[in-house]
């Protein structure tokens, strides 16, 4: 992942070549698919050309995106050079003078420092090919769902990763139905639990008076991770260790 530092300086100018490169990147990244129109013209997303959009607004929006819309942030998607080139292009189609304040070309962050084994472990943790993967029940970095505990900082012995303690798991009883459950919350007369009968976990809500909890849930972490070999779990441990250290 490349990280951009936004540094605003006055007086620096983009080379024409950068603006042209920005136009190409814009075409491949921003006017692609059903987003902005070609040349910043009409599309599903707003017109960008000829609107006098301010540099500060463009810089923030391109980097961070607009929450709750289709506009993602590009700070982790574009290299520093590409980001600057797109900014140069956006300023140009908004009629900004080439000599106006622009961004100091940002140096690309060094290539991801994730070592090979940890990278393999990350791939396994979030393996999209497995219907059930670690990320189905655990959140690490930007991905996954926090049903179970944060595995970063837990014991990273392969046997522990395989067996998992599952101390949060209780037996829930609702009418005739019993299932292994993790309590999410109980308020306003409603109780919400994760039902762990089958992956993926289901967040179920009940009237609090209808739910009873006890120990003795028939639930085994080892059943959920059986598609992972010990070598896989070793790589996953390396990944979790790397996250803890970075």
């Amino acid at each position: 992942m490349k990280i951009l530092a936004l540094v605003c300086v006055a007086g620096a100018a983009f080379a024409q070549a950068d603006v042209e490169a920005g136009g190409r990147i814009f075409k491949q990244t921003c006017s692609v698919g059903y987003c902005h129109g070609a040349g910043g013209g009409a599309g599903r997303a707003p017109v960008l050309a000829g609107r006098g959009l301010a540099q500060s607004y463009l810089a923030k929006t391109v980097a961070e995106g607009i929450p709750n819309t289709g506009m993602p942030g590009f700070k982790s998607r574009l290299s520093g050079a590409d980001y600057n080139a797109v900014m140069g292009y956006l300023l140009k189609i908004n009629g900004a003078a080439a000599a106006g304040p622009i961004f100091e070309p940002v140096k690309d962050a060094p290539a991801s420092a994730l070592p090979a084994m940890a990278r393999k472990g990350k791939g396994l943790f979030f393996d999209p090919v497995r219907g059930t993967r670690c990320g189905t029940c655990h959140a690490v970095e930007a991905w996954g769902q926090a049903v179970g505990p944060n595995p970063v900082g837990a014991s990273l012995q392969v046997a522990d990763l395989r067996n998992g303690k599952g101390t949060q798991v209780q037996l829930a009883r609702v009418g005739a139905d019993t299932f292994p459950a993790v309590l999410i919350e109980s308020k306003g007369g409603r109780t919400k639990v994760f039902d762990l009968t089958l992956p993926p976990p289901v967040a179920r809500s009940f009237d609090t008076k209808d739910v009873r909890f006890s120990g003795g849930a028939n639930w085994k972490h080892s059943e959920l991770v059986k598609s992972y070999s010990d070598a896989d779990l070793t790589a996953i441990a390396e990944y979790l260790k790397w996250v803890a250290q970075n």
Partner: protein
Amino acid sequence: MKYITLLLAMSAMAQSPHATTANWPHYGGQYSSWRYSALDHVNNSNVKKLAPVWGFSTGDIAGGLQATPIVVDGVMYLSSSNNHIFAINAVTGEQLWRYTHQLPKGFTTFYGPWNRGVAVGNGSVFVGTLDNRVVAVDQKTGKEQWNVLVEDANQCGCNITGAPLLVKGKVIVGVTGGDSAHRGYVTAFDVKTGREAWKFWTIPAPGEKGNETWLGDSWKLGGGSSWMTGSYDPELNLVYWSIGNPSADFYGDSRKGANLYTDCVVALDADTGKLKWFHQQIPHDVLDYDTAYENILLDLPVEGKMRKLLLNVNKGGIVFVVDRVTGQFVSGYKLVKHINWMTGFSKDGEILGRNDPKEGVPTFVCPAIGGGRSWNQAAYSPVTKQLYTTAIEWCQDVVVGKEEPQEGKTFFGGTFEARHPKGEPAYSHLDAIDPVTGKKLWEYRSKYPLLASVLATAGNLVFSGDPEGNFFALDAKTGAKLWSFQTGSGHRGSSITYSVNGRQYVATPSGWGSAVAGLVSQLWPEVAEFRSASMVWVFALPEAAK
């Protein structure tokens, strides 16, 4: 005696598995997705008197309003953009309850904020969400019952915008992601508990039949979304789902092969999700011509023999009719005049004369990526035996470019710009055609692309709406416009009809927006200024005239 005959006729009508009557229970009307109602109080002789009786604004106009309202026993269930669900008194328009799904803070999605509808049954209302969850809420109160994350949306870049299909105690959902580096699936959940019942991966894994149709690892992130809603045949116990294009959309060299089961109709066992048969429309698609749309189940004679058929409109502007017992090809025809990516069909349904775009240079291709028809659905009337479908005459320049997949990120492998066809400006039409042969009975023209579904009724009427905001009724036999009402914003949803206490109502969403609507302004710049909205309008005949 006359009264008894009428009662018998009405009871036969109510039991018809294909036509709707008082309720509009499923996304496509009934399981066979005809979008046809047996109600005929509103008909071609009195439709001129049709007048609005109530309106409902959802308050969230992002992306317009694309849903099909569901009506059960006098209550309308409506979903809007950003996963609001409303229960509305279908006679008065009064809100009974509202549910709003809480999205994670700062959530963004490429596939837009819209939602195309809910499913209702077993005491619950079900919706698929923008962050790729399926949620069940209590049908009477709107209180959440269960909520399951199908796959992390931040990772997969995918989500659910289509309406769920409810079959035999299971709620079945598709997934977007066809323009992303993602491997698609269709998933079924138990209606009571939310526990996963089955999952059908739309791209076979190594060791499974069909994986050999993908080069190397390309199957892992090869698209095959399932973004619209399936149909169901209770006699065959088969769920029919349409599987979208392979990814990258335009660049195909890194996924050489037929790319099963992309661009296929798949027939799945409703109890297990197991594949019974598939019919691939376009092997190795490089034009984003999804097989994504509705599957219309028809029983019609072909060469003198009654057949169980399935009709599917492909985004590339062509129609396939197959045998829904076996998946065998029956017929194929063109829906649009301006089509240059193929020339026709072999007798086995193979597409002839393919004109695939080249890398690095613009290729002029018709129809445009928005489709020879978009996802808005067709209707079938058993009275006229006609299929009523919209179509769009437009083209594009495609430039193919090599692209490496990044999981969950867009993966087009090329760019496109809409163009007018050679020799005439782009336009749109709503046609009445013979479903098996494609023979056209009539054509109704529109300047702008028609992007709303069609509704057919036993009242000899066909309803739809246009981007300018007009909701209109055509004579089903002649295509003559009989009635029109300006709703204030363009149409991108699906109209329905229902009755409560014997009075027939016609309801339509109104609210301009969507991905394809965004493309329209590339050819008609003024469309960029078309106003959005998110309203349902409901019409009826004056009380005295019923």
